[in-house]
């Protein structure tokens, strides 16, 4: 094998004092050969981004590498001066970031942003030549209509298109090394699949080494030549993709791999007997916008005649790409927004068009768990206060509510001391448990989980899903489970609904749907999902 494009030797980056551990990364060594894709995986906070930042020389000032070497084509970057680093950045190494929404300057045309890469490095290129090159690059990443697209602003592009622009930008000067820090995490599955395909294709053509950071083993199995697993700043395992995925040595790796949801539905449970549904909607419609004297914004039909029914003890999954109206449906049912038309029945009563005042008795019966665990708890109130608030609103005494909170906090797997603490003292997964406890405290009939696990690490995700499963069993709850991730849906749901553009395009029992998706969109969704090709691994051998 030829000389590696990137070689990190015994790199350590200390954390500032007061952090939860001493080093962001500690004694890390890894190499990337030309034409190779090296995936760095690890849970959140394991030091993946810091590694990328250290290579690019883009660490925040508080983080300074204290030991080791970073060799880019043999040159030690830690010894390079600012001017030299500037030359290398974008020249010999380039980076693609996680958030395509924010990584592009919203005020500049994308073509100019790509061209800037050329201006900064290939200064000799004339204006016209630059324009041609930009067009070429945009075409290379399969952007339609490169000519006109170059004149667009970032907000006029979809997330996938933006990520393609970022990749085009990275490719502009034929770098030896491309670092991609979770480039697909923010995209929906179909787009993610396209981007991954693109990266493979480019890498095959260009012979650049790619350091690909991700926390998703599905992605790893799709793209990696070699895998590096990190945990709390240290390298725990490394090797060819094949061997790490199929024969993980380190228990941590095994645990990670085991946590990856399989895209196979578990065997169908005994369906709850058909009683009258606890929740049903009929022809639910919601239009946004078009309001106001002078018209505020374009009108959007977010929901278009949705009819669903939910039995006690049943879990109904709703999948669909971003913007398909899943959250809107949840919010209409919970009456955080007012539906435009249609019916929402709780028990027998239609609450769709009730005025806010009259809603009070019904609120208790539907509870929502939100996507963002960091924003769904009031940071200024203790966990206990947050949990007892609802029951007390419905007349429970403080003592009784507190007793109930204690039970629930135990039920969700936290100790009673948690009640006295504030949300910031908990991790994302723990917060999501607290949110579940809060919802359960209301003794609801229906629990709506809107992307309740999407923001969590796979390992944590798995725990929360298990919790929901357990609760469903114990309390005979009806759950409306909203997700964009088919694998997650497959694991939990009895029935699935596939949404597209505010409409239901397909509906059926989970297993049946997986076995034989009817609608083209559903099939596309299945095809795109990154799937672990390796056989299942038990967490504990």
């Amino acid at each position: 094998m030829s000389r590696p494009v990137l070689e990190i030797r015994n790199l350590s980056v200390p954390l500032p004092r007061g952090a939860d551990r001493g080093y962001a990364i500690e004694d890390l060594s890894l190499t990337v050969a030309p034409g190779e894709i090296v995936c760095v995986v690890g849970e959140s906070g394991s030091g993946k981004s810091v590694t990328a930042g250290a290579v690019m020389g883009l660490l925040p000032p508080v983080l300074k590498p204290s030991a080791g070497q970073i060799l880019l084509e043999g040159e030690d970057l830690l010894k390079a001066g600012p001017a030299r680093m500037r030359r290398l950045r974008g020249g010999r190494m380039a980076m693609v970031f996680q958030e395509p929404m924010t990584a592009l300057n919203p005020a500049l045309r994308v073509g100019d942003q790509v061209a800037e890469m050329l201006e900064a490095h290939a200064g000799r290129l004339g204006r016209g030549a630059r324009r041609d090159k930009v067009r070429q690059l945009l075409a290379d990443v399969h952007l339609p209509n490169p000519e006109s697209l170059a004149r667009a602003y970032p907000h006029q592009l979809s997330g996938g298109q933006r990520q393609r622009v970022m990749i085009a930008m990275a490719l502009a000067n034929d770098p030896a090394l491309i670092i991609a820090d979770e480039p697909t995490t923010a995209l929906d599955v179909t787009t993610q699949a396209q981007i991954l395909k693109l990266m493979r294709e480019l890498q095959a053509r260009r012979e650049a080494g790619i350091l690909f950071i991700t926390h998703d083993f599905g992605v790893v199995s799709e793209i990696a030549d070699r895998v590096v697993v990190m945990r709390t700043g240290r390298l725990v395992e490394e090797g060819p993709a094949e061997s790490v995925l199929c024969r993980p040595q380190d228990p941590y790796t095994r645990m990670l791999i085991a946590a990856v949801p399989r895209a196979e539905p578990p065997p169908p449970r005994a369906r709850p007997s058909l009683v009258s549904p606890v929740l049903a909607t009929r022809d639910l419609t919601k239009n946004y916008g078009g309001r106001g004297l002078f018209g505020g914004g374009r009108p959007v039909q977010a929901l278009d005649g949705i009819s669903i029914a939910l039995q006690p003890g049943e879990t109904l999954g709703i999948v669909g790409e971003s913007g398909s109206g899943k959250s809107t449906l949840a919010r209409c049912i919970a009456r955080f927004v007012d539906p435009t038309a249609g019916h929402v029945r709780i028990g027998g009563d239609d609450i769709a068009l009730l005025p806010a005042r009259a809603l009070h008795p019904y609120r208790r019966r539907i509870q929502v768990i939100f996507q963002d665990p960091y924003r769904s708890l009031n940071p200024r109130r203790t966990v206990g206060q947050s949990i007892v608030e609802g029951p007390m609103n419905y007349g429970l005494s403080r003592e009784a509510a507190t007793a109930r909170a204690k039970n629930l906090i135990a039920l969700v797997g936290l100790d009673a001391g948690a009640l006295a603490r504030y949300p910031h003292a908990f991790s994302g997964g723990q917060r999501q448990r607290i949110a579940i406890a809060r919802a359960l405290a209301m003794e609801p009939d229906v629990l709506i989980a809107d992307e309740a696990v999407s923001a969590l690490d796979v390992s944590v995700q798995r725990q929360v899903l298990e919790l929901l499963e357990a609760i469903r069993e114990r309390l005979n709850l009806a759950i409306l489970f909203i997700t964009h991730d088919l694998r997650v849906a497959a694991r939990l749901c009895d029935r699935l609904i596939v949404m597209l553009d505010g409409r239901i395009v397909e509906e059926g029992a989970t297993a049946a749907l997986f076995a034989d998706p009817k609608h083209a969109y559903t099939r596309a969704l299945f095809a795109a999902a990154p799937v672990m090709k390796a056989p299942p691994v038990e967490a504990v051998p």
Partner: protein
Amino acid sequence: MGRFILGRLAATLPVMGVVAVIVFLLLRLAPGDPAAILAGDAATPEQIAAIRARLGLDQPMLEQFATWIWRLVHGDLGTSIISNQPVGRLILDRIEPTLALATSTILFAVLVAVPLGVLAAWRHGTWVDRAVMGLSVAGFSVPVFVLGYLLIFGFSMQLRWLPVQGYVSIADGLWPFLSRLILPTLTLSVIYIALIARTTRSSVLEVLGEDYIRTARAKGVTEARVLRRHALRNAAIPVISVIGLGIALLISGVVVTESVFNLPGLGRLTVDAVLARDYPVIQGVILLFSALYVLVNLSIDLSYLLFDPRIRY
């Protein structure tokens, strides 16, 4: 877009209506009687009453208000009670110095403050940052008139570089015009510089933390370019809106600065009018100032279009 502008213009009407009502009520409830002022030292109550009647001040308030608004809608700001001149003409006579002072202040302040603010943000946490911020806080701490006196004392009385007071129209020569504008501009811009520099700093600081700045740096673009092309433009909106909101501050400062430097502008016209209870003049000028404020802020809203392509009305 045209629809949007029209809509926004229409939305300024209620605001101006509120201003009109407030100003009118405030004045009519105020003690002090222009009739008594006109009547003078040796006047008898009957004379005062006669003058009140002639000025229409004995009419019910609602009627007075209706009359005023009716005339206003027809472009008639009324006639000064004291000097008998049409308010429109008084304002026209006085508008030039005020505009000159305000414009030069804004220009000067922006030219000084924006680079300072960017510098402070770029050198965040260093002594440069602290010095710039310290100075601009200090700028907020000295009463305008004290600063004015100090500048006159230093530059006019001791150094004799610049005239103490007065205004010369630009039509009568550039240097005479400028020389009389320099000190008032300096005096008035201090607060404005402080305001803009602080906003620029915090806005640029915020933008510098954005992902696309990291992207730009990852491209190997020079720092100067990062600041100019990526940071400044995206930081512009808060800065521009503070310039607009600061117009109110500026107008307040103008009132004081004009009396310290004897600039025959609108600020003094208003203070004089308030002291003389010259209702039509006060109403006219305040309405004008408010309209100016509203329009400036409207055009600033529109200027966002230039800076942020995401905004599409």
